[in-house]
Structures are given as structure tokens and as C-alpha cells.
């Protein structure tokens, strides 16, 4: 699943995290540290599964249950960003 940042989004890394502004909906938000990491990975990798796996490897410390939860939460986060139009996803 290829992910791209919507052309309608203006964004920037700031001291507080990544700030996003959707020029069509007017939605503005600043992502927390984890959200900012995922956003930067979307920008570089552009694939949902590698991002989830990478986050799982970095934070699960070999714990399968934690790993599954991280994968689920990353997918939920990306899903919400797709839903609000910040990210576009194509099969």
C-alpha cells in the first residue's frame, strides 16, 4: 500500500513535532513525537507495512504482544491520517 502526503498539506518539522495544515479543510495539527516519526517515515518510505514493522522493531523489544499492539496502533494512526486527507493511499 503506497502512501503519499497529500498535495493539499503544508507541513514542517518544528521543535514541538511535525505541524500539518490541510489547505482544503483548514485542519491544523501538531503531531507528538511518535506521530512525527511515523510522518517522517511516510515521507521517506511511503509504504504502510515497512513503517509498522520498523516501529515494532524499534519499540517492542522482542515482545510479541507489544509488537502486535504497535503494528495495530501504527495502522490506526495511518488510517486516521488517510481518513482526514493528510495522507493518500493507493493499492
Amino acid at each position: 500500500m503506497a502512501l503519499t502526503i497529500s498535495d493539499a498539506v503544508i507541513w514542517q518539522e518544528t521543535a514541538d513535532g511535525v505541524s500539518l495544515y490541510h489547505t482544503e479543510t483548514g485542519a491544523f495539527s501538531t503531531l507528538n513525537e511518535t506521530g512525527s516519526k511515523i510522518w517522517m517515515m511516510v515521507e521517506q518510505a511511503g509504504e504502510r507495512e515497512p513503517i509498522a514493522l520498523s516501529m515494532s522493531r524499534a519499540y517492542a523489544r522482542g515482545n510479541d504482544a507489544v509488537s502486535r499492539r504497535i503494528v495495530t496502533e501504527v495502522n490506526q494512526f495511518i488510517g486516521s491520517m488517510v481518513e482526514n486527507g493528510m495522507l493518500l493511499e493507493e493499492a
Partner: protein
Amino acid sequence: MTRVVVLGGGLAGVLAAVALTRHADEVVVLETDHYPASPRPRRGLPQSHHNHVLVTGGIRALDRLLPGVVDDLLDAGAHRRNMPGDCLIFSGEGWFHRVRTEADLIACSRPLLDEVVRRHAGIEVVQGVTATGLTGDAGKVTGVHISAEIRRPGRGHAGRLAELRTTTGTPLSDLPQIARTGSVRADLVVDATGRRSQAPGWLAALGVSPVEEVSVPSGVSYATRLYEGPGDIPAVMVHPKYTPARGGTLFPIEGGRWIVTMTGDPPLDEAGFLAYARELRDPVIADLIAKAKPVGPIRPCHDTANRRRRFEDVTLPEGFLAVGDSVVTVNPVYSHGMSVAAMTAVRIAEEGPSQRAVAEVADRSWRMAVAAPRKGGDAKVGRAMLSSPGLAAELFHGQALIPAVRDHHAVFRAMVDDPVEPLTAEQAISQFAWAR
């Protein structure tokens, strides 16, 4: 020979007549009132005592229709100010910085504008003639009934009928028929008789469906007074922030005068007017007028409701068009009436008479006037608007009836950057090299 008869010799009627000379063999403008010999308010235009400004959309339209007329207006003493570059504005968010946009306003008295436009247009208006109804049927308007006085004998064998001339001064060729029938034949009748237009009733008498009229109260009244004052000052605006919507404006106009308007529920006595100005969110206007000499009385204006007559929604007969305040009147705080008239005239000149085109121009102003105030919004963007050229442009271009494009990068910077420290009143005033 195609003939247009325009009812109403105010700004909307004169500009419509100018536009229609491009589409008809002859145009006749009938005005109930008599114009004064020099630019001063007239009985038939009670709002002419109050503040009128042209905004960029109207300025551009006027110059397109009558090239050079804006220069004539400025030469006659009108003042052009950029918004907010040449204006001292205390909005609900705070004081504006002097950033420049493409939004301008031209301030002068309404009588001066009317006279300069009429002179520049060089068209003859038949004065002292009142239209009393339409001739024709629900399918086609064929002319207008005129008041009986003009058919009474006067000097010369044609009496006052001889005053019926086209905009070029040519006597009408069918005077005997007009004398006999009491009506003037027309291929197109344009109603530019203003907010008190009788046209819906006249159309109903021909069997046309009722024209819907929407009225939205503005909830405010006005009081206006002229003062003697120099022209080298900014336009000053103190906007209300909370209800009651108390605000004030001061515009320099021709003749070394200021036109000062208090909005909300201003008193009409001398002491009350000054006290009201002093109690606004900032007393800058009170400070100015305290040192200035008043000219004439304080004049009230209570007729500030927004009104829209939806002529375009009924099946109008051929040969009828309504323009100007007859179609839309918005709360004078928006100062859109004259600009809408000019923009409408340009559409008519370029596209021919079309009630739909009139409605399109009217609706932009109408929507702005009756839109519910936006609740919430981002306080950071509102604050940044005071100093950001991109954000100020969006606001003022909308107010000036020119394309208002959102500067997304300016919005983003407003969200991300530290807010600019708001100006104090003293700092705002000192931008104009003028101490309180």
C-alpha cells in the same frame, strides 16, 4: 429603433443607461427628483447625507465603464485609501499594521460622486418625471406610464412633454402618442428606482408571479455628522467587538471635511454623540472630532436592514430589468451599494441586459452581509491577520469585492510561528506620524 427607458437617475440608473447605450438605439432616463445645481444632498436620496465609499471592485468597474472618471473624482477632492495600508483600523482582534493590499476605498460625499459620474458620462436625464406603472402584459413589457403633470400644457405647444429627451438630448419622436396615451414606449424598461421600488407591484398588475423579498434586520442604526478637517489623515475605523455593536468611522472627503459615523445605537444630541465616540473601544475618533468644527446637524439613519428582491427567480416578462438598490440593499457598514451598481453596469455593457447577471453581482455583497458571524476560528490566525500581508489581503479583498484568495502559507506560518506582539493604540496611531 430600439428604445430603453431607465427609471431612476441615481448612480445605478445612470450607469445602467451608460451601459445600455451600447445595446439600444436610444436610451431615456426618467428621474422623479430634480438634481441640485451643485453637489449637495437631494430630497429623493435621503441616504446621500451618510457615508458612501467605493471599493476596489467598484473603482475598477467604474473606470472600465467610463475611463478616466476615477481620476475626475480624485481631482474633485475625493480621497483614495489603501486597506489597511492607509487606514487606522481597530478590529475585534486588535490594531492593524500598515500592510498594503490591492483593496482600496475612495471616500467622498455621495452628491459629489453622482455629479462627477453624470458629468463624465455626459448623458441627459429627464428630471421631474415619475413612472407610475408598466404597460404590456405578463409576457412582455412595452413601456411605462408616466405621471400626468408632464402632459399638462406648458411653454410651447408641446408643453413639458418637450422635456422628454434621450440621453443624447434628442427629443422623442413619438411625443403625440405619449401625450395621447400617457405612456412612453420601450423595448426595455430598467427599474433603478432604489429601495422603495414599486416594480414588484407593477409586475403583479401585469399578471407576473410575486417577486420574493427577503429582509434581514441589521440590528443597528447610524448617526452621521460632517466636520471641517484636513484631508491628510488616514481613514479611521473602530469596529465593535461585542454586542451592542457599537463602532465608528471617520473618512476624509472633499472640501476639507470629514464624514464621521457612529453605529449601533448612537444618540443624536451634541454631547451624547461625542460621549458615544469617546466610549467606543478606543477614543481615537472622539479625540479627532473634539478639536474639529462640526458642519451641520447630526443625522440619523435607521433604515439599515438588508433587503433582497429575487426578480431573477420569477418568469419575468421580456423587456424588463431591475438593477441597483431595487434588487439588493445591504447594511451600509459594507459600503457596497455604489460598487455593486458599477459592477452590474459593466456586466450589462459587456453581456447585454440579464437579470441573472445582475443577481450574480448582487449576491456576493448579499452573502457577505447576511452570513452568520463565524464562530471560533483560530485565534492565532485572527491575530496574525493584523500584520500578515497575505492574511490581510484575503480579508480586505473580500470586503473590496475583488477575488479573495486564501494565502495558505500565511495561515500555516500564523499557526507555527510565534505571534507578533499586538500594537498598542499609541503604536498604531504613530504609524501615521500623528500623535494622539
